[in-house]
C-alpha cells in the first residue's frame, strides 16, 4: 500500500472521460431559453437526445487541466523528435494571433475592410520568398503533406501545358511517408531511389532511373538522415536534363535558413512547414501550414487564392475567371483549401521571423546544427552513429550499439521517458536499422543537452551491462506503462459507448 488510492501519484491524477462525468442539470454556459422559433421546421427536427454529457465550468476546467498534465510538451521537457523540429514556441506569436484585427475578421468581408490582413499574408510571403530565393509562393496549403500535393500538382500542370504526360515520380527510400502518398494522390507512380553508403542519394542510381516518363524527383534536403545532400547541384542538373522537376521537401529547412537558399540549389518547388521551422506550435497534431515556394516555371499554376496588388490596394484573386489572371497569363491549378489558407499560422510565423530577423534566423540555424553535431560527437563513444559527421540539424544513430543487449531502439526511447525526456524519433528513416533520429533544435541550453547526453549514455551503459531485458519494462513513471497497440488495432474501440444497462436482478 503506497498511501495513494486509484493509482494517483502526487498531482498526476486519474481522470475519467467526460461522458463518465455527466451531471444532468449542470451546464458550462448560461444561455437563455427561446421558444417557438422552430415551428416552421416540422419533420426536420432532431428526435431524442444526442447523448452529450452536461458539466459545469469548474469540472470542465479541471478535466482538461488534468488531461494536459498527462502530456509531455516542449514547455516542460526536452523533445528531440527528429524531423519534427520541436523548438520553443514563443508566446508573443500567440498574443499577436489573438489581436482582434487578426482573430476577429471573416474571410469574406469586403477586401477594403481587411487590407491589413492581406498585407500580413503578403508580408509573410515576402519573408518566405526571400529566405528561399524563390520568385513565387502558394500560401494556402494547410501542412507539409498538403504543400507536397500542391507542388506536385503545379508540376503536373506545367507538364500538361508542355503536352508531356510523364507518369513517374522518383522518391528516395529514406523519404517521409507523405512524399510517396502525395505523389500517388497526384496520380503518379512512385519509384524509389536507393541511398549510397554515405547516406545520400545514389547519383548513379538516380541517373539510371531518370527518363522521359519521370515528372519529378522529390528530395528532402538536408535529408531525413540529417545530412546535407552534397551532390545536390549534380542531382538538380541531372533531373533538369531529363526534363523533370526538382521537388524539395522543406521539412528540414531549419538547418539552413539564412545560410542556403533553395533557389541556389536548383529546386523548382519546396513546401515549408511553418509549424516546424517557424515555431508555430504543433498543438498536439496541428494546425500547421505548408506554404509552397515555386520557380518561375511553376508560378503560373499556383492554386487560388492569390493576393495581388492593384490600384485599389491589396486584393484577393479567388475565382478562375478573375480578369487579373488573364492579364498575367496565370492558369491556377484550382483550389486546395477553403478560404485563404492558415491565416492564424501566418501571423505566428511572421511574428517569429520579425523577432529573429535576418541575423537571428542565421544564428538559429547555426545553433541548431551546432547542437546536433554536439550530440553526435558526445554520443558517438557509446552509441553508433549511422554516418560520420558533420550532420545538419539532427543526428542519426542506428541500433548496432544494442547488439546482444536484449534491448531495442524502442526500449531506449521508453527508458528516456522515465528520466524526463521525450524520446527521439524511432524507426525513421527506414534506411538504417532501428533508427534513432535526434533533433535538438537551437532552443535548448547546453546544460539540457549535457543532461540528455549523460542520461542517454547511462541508459545505454545499463543496457550493455546486462540490464537490457529490464529496459523492456520502461516506462515506469509515466501516466501509463506501455500500451497494447495490437489489441487496439485488432478490436478497435474508437469512441465511448454508454455502458450496457445492468441486467435486472433475478
Amino acid at each position: 500500500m503506497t498511501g495513494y488510492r486509484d493509482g494517483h501519484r502526487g498531482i498526476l491524477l486519474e481522470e475519467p472521460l467526460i461522458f463518465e462525468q455527466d451531471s444532468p442539470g449542470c451546464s458550462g454556459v448560461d444561455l437563455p431559453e427561446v421558444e417557438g422559433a422552430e415551428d416552421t421546421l416540422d419533420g426536420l427536427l432532431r428526435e431524442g437526445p444526442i447523448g452529450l454529457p452536461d458539466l459545469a465550468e469548474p469540472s470542465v476546467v479541471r478535466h482538461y487541466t488534468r488531461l494536459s498534465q498527462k502530456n509531455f510538451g516542449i514547455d516542460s521537457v526536452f523533445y528531440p523528435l527528429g524531423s519534427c523540429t520541436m523548438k520553443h514556441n514563443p508566446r508573443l506569436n500567440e498574443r499577436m494571433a489573438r489581436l482582434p484585427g487578426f482573430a476577429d475578421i471573416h474571410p469574406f468581408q469586403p477586401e477594403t475592410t481587411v487590407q491589413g490582413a492581406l498585407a500580413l499574408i503578403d508580408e509573410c510571403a515576402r519573408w518566405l520568398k526571400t529566405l528561399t530565393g524563390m520568385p513565387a509562393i502558394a500560401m494556402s496549403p494547410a501542412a507539409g503533406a498538403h504543400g507536397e500535393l500542391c507542388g506536385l500538382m503545379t508540376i503536373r500542370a506545367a507538364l500538361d501545358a508542355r503536352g508531356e504526360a510523364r507518369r513517374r515520380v522518383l522518391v528516395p527510400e529514406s523519404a517521409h511517408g507523405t512524399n510517396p502518398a502525395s505523389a500517388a494522390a497526384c496520380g503518379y507512380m512512385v519509384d524509389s531511389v536507393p541511398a549510397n553508403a554515405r547516406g545520400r542519394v545514389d547519383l548513379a542510381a538516380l541517373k539510371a532511373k531518370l527518363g522521359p516518363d519521370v515528372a519529378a524527383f522529390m528530395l528532402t534536403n538536408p535529408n531525413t538522415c540529417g545530412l546535407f545532400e552534397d551532390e545536390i547541384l549534380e542531382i538538380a542538373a541531372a533531373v533538369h536534363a531529363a526534363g523533370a522537376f526538382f521537388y524539395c521537401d522543406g521539412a528540414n529547412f531549419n538547418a539552413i535558413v539564412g545560410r542556403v537558399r533553395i533557389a541556389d540549389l536548383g529546386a523548382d518547388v519546396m513546401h515549408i512547414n511553418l509549424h516546424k521551422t517557424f515555431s508555430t506550435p504543433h498543438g498536439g497534431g496541428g494546425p500547421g501550414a505548408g506554404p509552397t515556394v515555386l520557380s518561375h516555371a511553376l508560378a503560373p499554376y499556383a492554386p487560388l487564392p492569390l493576393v495581388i496588388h492593384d490600384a485599389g490596394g491589396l486584393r484577393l484573386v479567388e475565382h478562375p475567371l478573375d480578369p487579373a489572371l488573364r492579364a498575367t497569363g496565370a492558369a491556377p491549378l484550382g483550389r486546395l483549401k477553403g478560404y485563404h489558407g492558415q491565416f492564424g499560422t501566418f501571423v505566428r510565423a511572421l511574428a517569429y521571423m520579425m523577432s529573429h530577423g535576418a541575423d537571428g534566423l542565421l544564428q538559429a540555424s547555426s545553433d541548431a546544427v551546432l547542437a546536433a553535431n554536439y550530440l553526435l560527437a558526445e554520443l558517438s563513444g557509446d552509441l553508433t552513429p549511422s554516418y560520420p559527421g558533420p550532420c545538419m540539424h539532427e543526428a542519426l544513430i542506428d541500433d548496432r550499439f544494442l547488439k546482444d543487449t536484449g534491448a531495442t531502439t524502442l526500449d531506449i526511447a521508453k527508458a528516456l521517458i522515465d528520466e524526463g525526456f521525450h524520446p527521439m524519433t524511432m524507426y525513421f528513416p527506414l534506411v538504417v536499422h532501428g533508427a534513432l533520429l535526434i533533433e535538438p533544435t537551437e532552443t535548448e541550453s547546453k546544460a539540457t543537452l549535457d543532461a540528455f547526453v549523460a542520461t542517454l549514455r547511462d541508459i545505454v551503459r545499463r543496457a550493455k551491462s546486462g540490464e537490457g531485458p529490464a529496459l523492456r519494462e520502461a516506462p515506469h513513471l509515466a501516466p501509463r506503462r506501455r500500451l497494447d497497440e495490437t489489441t487496439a488495432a485488432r478490436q478497435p474501440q474508437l469512441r465511448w459507448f454508454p455502458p450496457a444497462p445492468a441486467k435486472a436482478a433475478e
Partner: protein
Amino acid sequence: MRYLPLTESDRGAMLAAIGASSVDDLFRDVPAEARLARALDLPNHAGEMEVERRLSALAAPNMTAGSVPFFLGAGVYRHHIPAAVDALIQRGEFLTSYTPYQPEVSQGTLQYLFEFQTQVALITGMEVANASMYDGATACAEAAAMACRITRRPEVLLSGSLHPHYRAVTATALQHTGHRIEELAPDPVGIEDLMGRIGGDTACVVVQNPSFFGGLRDLAALAAACRAEGALLVVAVAEPVSLGLLKSPGAMGADIVIAEGQSLGVGLSFGGPGLGLFATREKYVRQMPGRLAGQTVDADGRRGWVLTLSTREQHIRREKATSNICTNSGLCALAFSIHMTLLGEQGFRRLARINHAAAAKLAARLRAIPRVRVLARRFFNEFALLLPTAAAPVVEELAARRILAGVPASRFYPDFPELADVLLVAATETATESDMDALAAGLAEVLK
C-alpha cells in the same frame, strides 16, 4: 536574441567537443557556390515591443466583426467562445506537444481525441469519427475519394447546394486520379434533381445541409435513392451548430459526414485554421483517412489510449495510404471539444435554437423591406436574400457605413449573372437586436 539559450562560450566549448574550427566548418557539405555570401534583404532581429508595434499596425486597419453589426457566414460563422476554451488550449502541454506518437506521455492528447471522436460521432449521428482533417473543404475531397475506393466507382456527383470552396477543392484534389466530378449548377432555392443523376458509375452524391444558400431538406429519400443504386451519400455540414436542432445526417441515412468544425471553439481568424470533421459507418473505418485514437490497456491493465489502425496511413503504407495527411488540426479539435463539453447536451441544443430564432427574426425584418425576398422557406441560421439590385455594391456601401451585411453570391459565382442579386445573411447568438435594426435600416436606405 531571446529565443537562443546558447552563449558564445557554450558555442566555443561545443565546437571544441566536436573538433570543428567554426560553425561554417559544419556546413562544409554545402557546395561552395550554393552558400549565401551576402546578407538577405530582410530586417534584423527585433524586441517584443517592436514586433508588437509592427504587427499591431497591420491588425489595426481591419474592421473587426465584434466592432460592427455583423452577419457573415458562407461556411465560417461567428459564435461566442467561452473564455475557458482559449485558456485551456494554451496550456503548454497541449500547445507545445507533437502528434501523440509516444502514447505513454501523450495520454492527455489521446484522451481528448477519443472524446472528440465520440462527440463528432454523436452529433453527426454516425458510428465513428476520426481525429480531424485540415478543414471542411479538404475533408469533402477525402470523403469523395473514400467513396470511390469503397464502391470502386469513378464518379462523384456534387450538389449545387455544396459550398463552392468544397466543390473547388474536391474537383482540384481528384483531378489526376481517374475520378470524374459532376457538378450541378448552384442551386439557391433547392430544386435540383440529384436523384435523376445517380447511375451505375456514381460512387457518391455530396450534398450540404443546411445548404450553402441556407435551405434545409430531408435527405432520407436521397439516401434511399443512393442505396438503391449502390452509391454512397456524403453529407457536408458547414455549420455544426445546426446539429443541435436538426435531424442528424446519420439519422437521414448518410454514409459519410464531413463538416467544418470552426464554429465551435475555433473562431474566425480570417478563415484559417479551420477544423475538418469526418465521420462514417463502422464498416468503412479501414477506408477512412486521417488519424484515429483508440482505447486499449497498458502493461498494468489500466485503460489508456493510442493512435490506431495506422496501417491505413502514409507512414506505414506510403503510396498505398488512404490519404497523404499527417499533421491535422489537433489543437482546433481540442478547442471544439472543450466548447462542446461546456455546452453539453442542454447548451448545445439551446445554442442551436437561439441561432435559429435570431435568423428567423432577422429574416422577418429584412423581408419587410420593399423588393427584398428571402429565398429559402426553411433555414437554420443563414438564408439567401434576393435584392432588387446587385448585392456586391450594396455590401460595399453598407461596409462603408460600418455594417458587415453578408456575403454576395457573386463572390463565388461571377459567371452566374442570375446570382448577382443574391446575398447570404447569417445571424448567430452574437447578433443583437440593435445589430439587426442597423442592418434593416441600412439596407432599406441603400436600396432606396
